[in-house]
C-alpha cells in the first residue's frame, strides 16, 4: 500500500521482465558483456518487458462471502455499543468495525460518562487487541497446554485445597462487573477459607476509609463536577488519571465554557506540590509542599467552620504561610456553599476526613458529592491487601488466582512478594500478557481482550452497561468469568453467566417493568441502562464530625532533603498499557515528553543540583535501592519535590527498541521504557502512600536526552518581553464589557486585506469547511491526539525519531507557560493544519501536490508529493509532517487497525491534517444518496468527535446557521498569526480568565 505508484510500476516490471534478463542484469553474467549485440538483446528484452508490463497488472483476487452476514454491506462500517475495559472507570464505547474487525473506538453518545467522547487511553486500547505479544493460549509452566487439561489439573489441585481447608485467594483489581463479582463469590463459596481480595494499583483507599470514619460507610462518593461552581482540589488530578477522568472532565468542562451571553465559569483552585494536568487548568494554584497539604486543608476547614458558626481545629493550629490565599478561597467556597466541591487525591485518611468535613459543612453532600449513588470504580482495600501479603509471607495461602492485576509490578518490595508467591502451591494468572506476575504463575489462563469478550459493568451505583464482543476471539483465550465458572464446577459461556445474573440481580432494579428480553436487547443496543441504586450501597449515612481529625502543623521535610511524589500519567495510568505504542508516543499533556518517565524537579531545585533536562540523576530513598532516571525541569513544581510517574519500566517494554527506522545513526532504546517507581510506595495501616517519602537526588554525570515534542515553553522569545499573540486571553469582565473595550478582531486586519496580492483563483461555492477551537474549554487531555492517530493511520515513529523532532502527530497540543513558578499560568492550544485560505504551502509546492479545494480545504495528494519539504518550511504553523522513513507498525498484525478509508503514506511524502476529509466525503455522498441536505454537525472530525470538553467544533462556514459560523462571529474568536494574511479556516476562542493575575497585569501581549 505505501508508495503505491512506485510499487505499482516496479513490481509490474519485475514480475514481467523475462527471467534471464533480470537474472543477468543482477549478476552481470559473461553472456552479457557490453557488446553491441548483447546490448541490443538486452534493450529488446527490456522493451518487451516494458511493453508487456504496460498491458497487464498483477492478478488480484476478489473473494466474496459464502454466506454474507445479515446487515453487512462490504465497505460500510458497523457500530457496536460496548463498555471500555481500559481502566476501572468503565465508560461507554461505540466501536467501529469494518468487515468484522474493530478499527476505531469512540465514546458511546448514550452513555452519561462519555456522551460520545472517549479518553486517550480508551481509544488507544484498540491497539492492544492486535498486539501479537498477547498470550494466545493457556500455558502450564510456560508450556502450551489445552484448556481442558489445564482445567482438569487446576480443579484437582483446588479440590485438594478444599480437602485440606487451605486458604484460596482471588486477587483482582476493583471489580466493577456485577456478574464477575457474583461469579467470584460463587466460586469462593465452595471453599471453607476462600476470600476475594481486590486492590487498586493506584489506590484511593483513603477516601473510602475516611468515609468509613466520618459517614460510617466505606464508600467512594461520585463527584459531580458539573454541579460545582467552586472546586478546591488538594493534589487530586481529576482531569488526568484520578478515578473517573472522562466523567470528571466532561462535568468540569460543562462549567468552564464562558461566552458573552453567559459570562460565568466555575472557579477552580488547585493546591498541589507538582504541576498536574488538572493544576494546569486551575484558576488559582497554590504551590505547596506535600507535607503542607493537610495543614492548608485544615486551615480552610477552620475558616469554613468559622463561617458556618461551628468550630474546627480551634486549638493548636499553627499559622500557615498561605493564610491570605486560604482566606480568599474560603470566601469563595463559602459563597458557593452547596455548589462547592472539595476533593483530595491524598492517601492520608486524616486529610480526607478534613475534606469530608468541609464538604459536609458547606452542604456539598447530595449536590456535588454523591453518596447515595456511590462510585464502585475504586473499591480496593489496602488493608485486605496488607493482610494477604502477610498470609503469603506466612505461607498460608494454598491457591492464588490473580486476575487483572500485576502485584509484582504494582507493589513495592517485589522481591519478597515474588518469593512468597513462589511458595504458594497453586498460582494461576489470567493475564493477557506475560507480565511480571504471570511469569511466576504455574498456570496462565489468558483472558480475552475486552473487545473480544462479553462482560458488564456497574461503575457507579445504578448505572449498568454491557460489553459485547466486536470481533471473534483472535486466539485461544477465555473470558475470566468462564474460566472461574469452569473451576467452580459449572462451566458456562460468559453470555449465559451475564444473562443469568442480570435476570436475577439487575433486571429487577430496572424501572418501567419491561420484560427481561426487551430490557436486555435495549441495553445491549444502547450499551447502557439506568436502574435503581445497588441495594446495600449508598443511602444517606449520618455524618460524624468528631471523626474529622485536623492536621495541626505541616509535616516537616528535612532541611535540604527532597520529598518524593509518585503520580500516574494520563497515558500510562498504572502501567497496564505499557505495551501500547500509541500511548507511549502520546506526549504527556504537561511535560510534552514521550517514551519515558523522569524525575521532575522545580527550576530552582534543578539549579541547586546543577542538573538540566536529560541529565541522569540517581534518586535514593532510605531503605530502598537507588534508581537512575533522566531529570526534567518542571516549572510550577514545589522546590522540595521530586515527582516521578508510576507505571513505567514494565517487563517486555524493551520490545519498543524495534520501533522506529533501522539506520546506522539510529539509537533505539533497548532497555524497558522508563523505570518502575513502585519500589518507593510505602504503606500505612490502611492506605498505600505515594507521596511524602524523603529522598536524595544526585547527578549521575550521564545524559539520556528525553524525547520531548516541545522544547520552548514561553511565548516571549529570548531577549524580548513582548509576548507573541498566539494565545489570546480575556477576563470575564472584558467579556461583558461593551464591544469597544475588547473587540476580538480589532488587533488584526480581518478578512481580505487591501492590496492583497493573492488572486481569487479558488472560487468558493457550496460548502466552506471551518473549525473553531475553544481554548477556554480545552483541558489538554490529549484524547484528540490519539483519536486523530487512530482515524488517520498516523504512524508511531519511536523514541529516537521523536528526539529528532520527527513525531508524526497531525494534531499536537502546544502548551505555554506564563507568570512565575508561584503564579504559574498554563495554556493548552491544539494546533493542527489551519487550512489557510491563502496557504503559504500551496504556492511553493512545485508539483501541485498540495492545493486548495473548492470547499476551502488545503488538500494534500500524497501520491503526487515528491518530498521537497518546501511546504513544511513555508508553513508558519509547522503542522506538516514528513515521512522521513517508512514507519511500519511494530508487527504486521497491527495493520488490522488501519482505517481502510485513509491511505497509508509512504516514505518521502508530506502529510498533514485533512480535516478528516474521508468523513466529509462519506457524509456528503451519504446525504446525496438519501437526498437530504447535509446537516450541521453531521460531519464530525475525529478530534471533535472525541473531545471530552467539546472544545472543537467543525462545520460549514457558508451555512449561516451552523455552529462554527456563530462561533466565528464570537467576540472571543481570533485566528493565529492573522497578521500574515494566511486567513486560516481554524478560529480559536480566547482563553477566559477570572481576573488578570498580578504576574501579567496589563500585558497587552496577552490580548494580542
Amino acid at each position, binding site marked *: *500500500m505505501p508508495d*503505491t*505508484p512506485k510499487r*505499482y*510500476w516496479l513490481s*509490474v516490471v519485475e514480475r514481467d521482465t523475462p527471467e534471464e534478463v533480470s537474472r543477468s542484469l543482477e549478476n552481470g553474467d559473461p553472456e552479457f558483456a557490453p557488446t553491441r549485440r548483447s546490448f541490443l538483446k538486452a534493450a529488446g528484452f527490456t522493451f518487451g518487458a*516494458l*511493453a508487456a*508490463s*504496460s*498491458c*497487464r*497488472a498483477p*492478478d*488480484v*483476487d*476478489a*473473494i*466474496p*462471502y*459464502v*454466506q*454474507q452476514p445479515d446487515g453487512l*454491506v*462490504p*465497505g*460500510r462500517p458497523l457500530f457496536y455499543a460496548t463498555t471500555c475495559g481500559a481502566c476501572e472507570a468503565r465508560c461507554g464505547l461505540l466501536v467501529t468495525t469494518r468487515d468484522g474487525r474493530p478499527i476505531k473506538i469512540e465514546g458511546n453518545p448514550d452513555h452519561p460518562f462519555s456522551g460520545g467522547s472517549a479518553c486517550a487511553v480508551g481509544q488507544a486500547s484498540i491497539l492492544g487487541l492486535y498486539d501479537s505479544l498477547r498470550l494466545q493460549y493457556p500455558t502450564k509452566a510456560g508450556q502450551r497446554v489445552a484448556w481442558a487439561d489445564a482445567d482438569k489439573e487446576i480443579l484437582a489441585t483446588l479440590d485438594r485445597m478444599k480437602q485440606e481447608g487451605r486458604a484460596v485467594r482471588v486477587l483482582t483489581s476493583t471489580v466493577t462487573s456485577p456478574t464477575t463479582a457474583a461469579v467470584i463469590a460463587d466460586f469462593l463459596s465452595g471453599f471453607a477459607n476462600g476470600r476475594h481480595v481486590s486492590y487498586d494499583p493506584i489506590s484511593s483507599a483513603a477516601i473510602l476509609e475516611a468515609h468509613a470514619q466520618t459517614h460510617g460507610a466505606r464508600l467512594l462518593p461520585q463527584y459531580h463536577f458539573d454541579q460545582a461552581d467552586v472546586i478546591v482540589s488538594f493534589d487530586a488530578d481529576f482531569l488526568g488519571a484520578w478515578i473517573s477522568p472522562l466523567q470528571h472532565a466532561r462535568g468540569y468542562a460543562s462549567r468552564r465554557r464562558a461566552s458573552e451571553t453567559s459570562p460565568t465559569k466555575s472557579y477552580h483552585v488547585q493546591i498541589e506540590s507538582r504541576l498536574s494536568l488538572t493544576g494546569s487548568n486551575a484558576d488559582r494554584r497554590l504551590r505547596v509542599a506535600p507535607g503542607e497539604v493537610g495543614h492548608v486543608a485544615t486551615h480552610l476547614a477552620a475558616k469554613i467552620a468559622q463561617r458556618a458558626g461551628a468550630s474546627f481545629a480551634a486549638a493548636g493550629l499553627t499559622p500557615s504561610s498561605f493564610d491570605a490565599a486560604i482566606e480568599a478561597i474560603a470566601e469563595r467556597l463559602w459563597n458557593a456553599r452547596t455548589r462547592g466541591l472539595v476533593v483530595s487525591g491524598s492517601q492520608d485518611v486524616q486529610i480526607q476526613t478534613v475534606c469530608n468535613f468541609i464538604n459536609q459543612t458547606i452542604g456539598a453532600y447530595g449536590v456535588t458529592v454523591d453518596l447515595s449513588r456511590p462510585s464502585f470504580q475504586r473499591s480496593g482495600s489496602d488493608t485486605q491487601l496488607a493482610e494477604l501479603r502477610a498470609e503469603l509471607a506466612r505461607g498460608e495461602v494454598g491457591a492464588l488466582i490473580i486476575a487483572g492485576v500485576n502485584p509484582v509490578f504494582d507493589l513495592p518490595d517485589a522481591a519478597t512478594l515474588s518469593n512468597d508467591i513462589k511458595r504458594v502451591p497453586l498460582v494461576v494468572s489470567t493475564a493477557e500478557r506475560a507480565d511480571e506476575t504471570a511469569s511466576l504463575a504455574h498456570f496462565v489462563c489468558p483472558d480475552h481482550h475486552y473487545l473480544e469478550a462479553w462482560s458488564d459493568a456497574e461503575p457507579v451505583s445504578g448505572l449498568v452497561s454491557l460489553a459485547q464482543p466486536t470481533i471473534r476471539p483472535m486466539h485461544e483465550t477465555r473470558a475470566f468469568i468462564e474460566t472461574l465458572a469452569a473451576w467452580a464446577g459449572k462451566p458456562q459461556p460468559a453470555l449465559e453467566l451475564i444473562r443469568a445474573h442480570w435476570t436475577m440481580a439487575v433486571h429487577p432494579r430496572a424501572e418501567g417493568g419491561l420484560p427481561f428480553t426487551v430490557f436486555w436487547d435495549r441495553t445491549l443496543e444502547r450499551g447502557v441502562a439506568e436502574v435503581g441504586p445497588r441495594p446495600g450501597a449508598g443511602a444517606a449515612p449520618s455524618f460524624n464530625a468528631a471523626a474529622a481529625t485536623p492536621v495541626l502543623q505541616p509535616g516537616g521535610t528535612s532541611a535540604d532533603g527532597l520529598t518524593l511524589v509518585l503520580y500516574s500519567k494520563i497515558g500510562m495510568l498504572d502501567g497496564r498499557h505499557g505495551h501500547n505504542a500509541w500511548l507511549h508516543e502520546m506526549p504527556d499533556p504537561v511535560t510534552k515528553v514521550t517514551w519515558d518517565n523522569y524525575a521532575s524537579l522545580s527550576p530552582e531545585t534543578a539549579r541547586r543540583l546543577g542538573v538540566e533536562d536529560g541529565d541522569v540523576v540517581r534518586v535514593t530513598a532510605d531503605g530502598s535501592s537507588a534508581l537512575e532516571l533522566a531529570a526534567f525541569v518542571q516549572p510550577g513544581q514545589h522546590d522540595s519535590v521530586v515527582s516521578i510517574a508510576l507505571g513505567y519500566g514494565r517487563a517486555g517494554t524493551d520490545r519498543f527498541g524495534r520501533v522506529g527506522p533501522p539506520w546506522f545513526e539510529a539509537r533505539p532504546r533497548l532497555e524497558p521504557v522508563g523505570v518502575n517507581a513502585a519500589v518507593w510506595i510505602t504503606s500505612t495501616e490502611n492506605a498505600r502512600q505515594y507521596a511524602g517519602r524523603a529522598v536524595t537526588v544526585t547527578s549521575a554525570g550521564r545524559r539520556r536526552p528525553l524525547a520531548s515534542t516541545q522544547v520552548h515553553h514561553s511565548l516571549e522569545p529570548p531577549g524580548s518581553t513582548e509576548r507573541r499573540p498566539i494565545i489570546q486571553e480575556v477576563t470575564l469582565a472584558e467579556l461583558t464589557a461593551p464591544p469597544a473595550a475588547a473587540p476580538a478582531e480589532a488587533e488584526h486586519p480581518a478578512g481580505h486585506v487591501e492590496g492583497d496580492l493573492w488572486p481569487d483563483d479558488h472560487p468558493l461555492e*457550496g460548502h466552506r469547511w471551518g473549525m473553531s477551537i475553544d481554548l477556554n474549554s480545552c483541558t489538554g487531555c490529549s484524547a484528540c491526539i490519539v483519536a486523530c492517530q487512530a482515524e488517520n493511520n498516523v504512524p508511531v515513529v519511536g523514541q529516537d525519531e521523536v528526539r529528532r523532532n520527527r513525531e508524526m502527530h497531525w494534531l499536537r497540543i502546544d502548551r505555554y507557560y506564563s507568570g512565575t513558578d508561584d503564579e504559574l499560568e498554563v495554556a493548552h492550544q491544539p494546533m493542527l493544519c489551519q487550512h489557510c485560505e491563502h496557504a503559504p504551502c500551496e504556492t511553493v509546492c512545485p508539483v501541485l501536490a498540495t*492545493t486548495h*479545494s*473548492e*470547499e476551502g*480545504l488545503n*488538500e*494534500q*495528494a*500524497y*501520491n*503526487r508529493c515528491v518530498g521537497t519539504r518546501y511546504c513544511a518550511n513555508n508553513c508558519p504553523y509547522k503542522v506538516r509532517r514528513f515521512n522521513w522513513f517508512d514507519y511500519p507498525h511494530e508487527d504486521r498484525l497491527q495493520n488490522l487497525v488501519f482505517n481502510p*478509508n*485513509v*491511505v497509508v503514506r509512504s516514505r518521502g511524502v508530506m502529510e498533514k491534517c*485533512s480535516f478528516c*476529509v*474521508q468523513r*466529509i*466525503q462519506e457524509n456528503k*455522498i*451519504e446525504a*446525496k*444518496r438519501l437526498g437530504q441536505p447535509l446537516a450541521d454537525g453531521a460531519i464530525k472530525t475525529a478530534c471533535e468527535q472525541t473531545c471530552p470538553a467539546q472544545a472543537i467544533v467543525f462545520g460549514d462556514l457558508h451555512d449561516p446557521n451552523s455552529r462554527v459560523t456563530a462561533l466565528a462571529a464570537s467576540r472571543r474568536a481570533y485566528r493565529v498569526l492573522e497578521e500574515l494574511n494566511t486567513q486560516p479556516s481554524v478560529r480559536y476562542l480566547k482563553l477566559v480568565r477570572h481576573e488578570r493575575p498580578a504576574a501579567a497585569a496589563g500585558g497587552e501581549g496577552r490580548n494580542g
Partner: protein
Amino acid sequence: MSKPITAIVLAAALAVSLVTLVAAIRLPGSNQGYEPVQPIAYSHKLHAGDLQIQCMYCHSAADKSRHAGIPAMNVCMNCHSGVTASMTAVRQEEEAAKKENRAAQTIESAELRKLYDALALDETLFPISDKTATPIAWKRIHNLPDFVYFDHRAHITASVTCQTCHGPIETMERVRQYERLSMGWCVNCHRDANENGIAGKQVKAPLDCVTCHY
C-alpha cells in the same frame, strides 16, 4: 540511382516502425483490455444481457457502499438451487428421456458444479457433512491503485450508468476492462458532466484532489 530509392525506403520503414511503436506503447499502469480467465466461466452476456438480470441484483451494494461488491455465493444459489444447467441441455435430456421413456434426471452443467463444489453440495444439492464451503477466488478486473477512492454510491446516485465505466458488460462473455480508468479519463468525465450534466440532469462533479485522494 538506387541510392535515393533505398534512402526513401529506409525512411519510410523508419517512419512506419516509429508510428507502430508509439501506437504500441501504453502508459504504464493502464490495464485497458485486461481480461483474465475466471475460476468459473460466468457469462455476463447470458445473465445481464440475454436474461436481463439487473446489475444490482448481484452487485447489490453498488448504491449503498463504496464497493459494488462481488455477490456472495448464496446469491447465486437463489436461482441455481433450481437452475442447474442450460435450458437446451435440460430439453435434450427430457427428449432423450421421452425416447427412452424413462424419468428425466437432473442435468448439471460443469461450470455450476464448480459452484456447488465450492459450497460443498452433493448431486442433490444437499450439504456434504464433512466438507466446509470455500469461497471462490474471482480475478479482480477493475482494480484502481490503493491511493484512489472511487465510490460507486456517488456515481449511481448521480445516475451514471454502469456501462459508462464498465463498458457494454451485458455483451461480454468474459468481463474485460473496457476503459482506461486513468486519472485523466476520470477527470475528463467529471469535466464533461459539469458541462453537459448526466442524463439531462445538471450535476456537480467535483474536481478537487480530495475527491479521490485522501
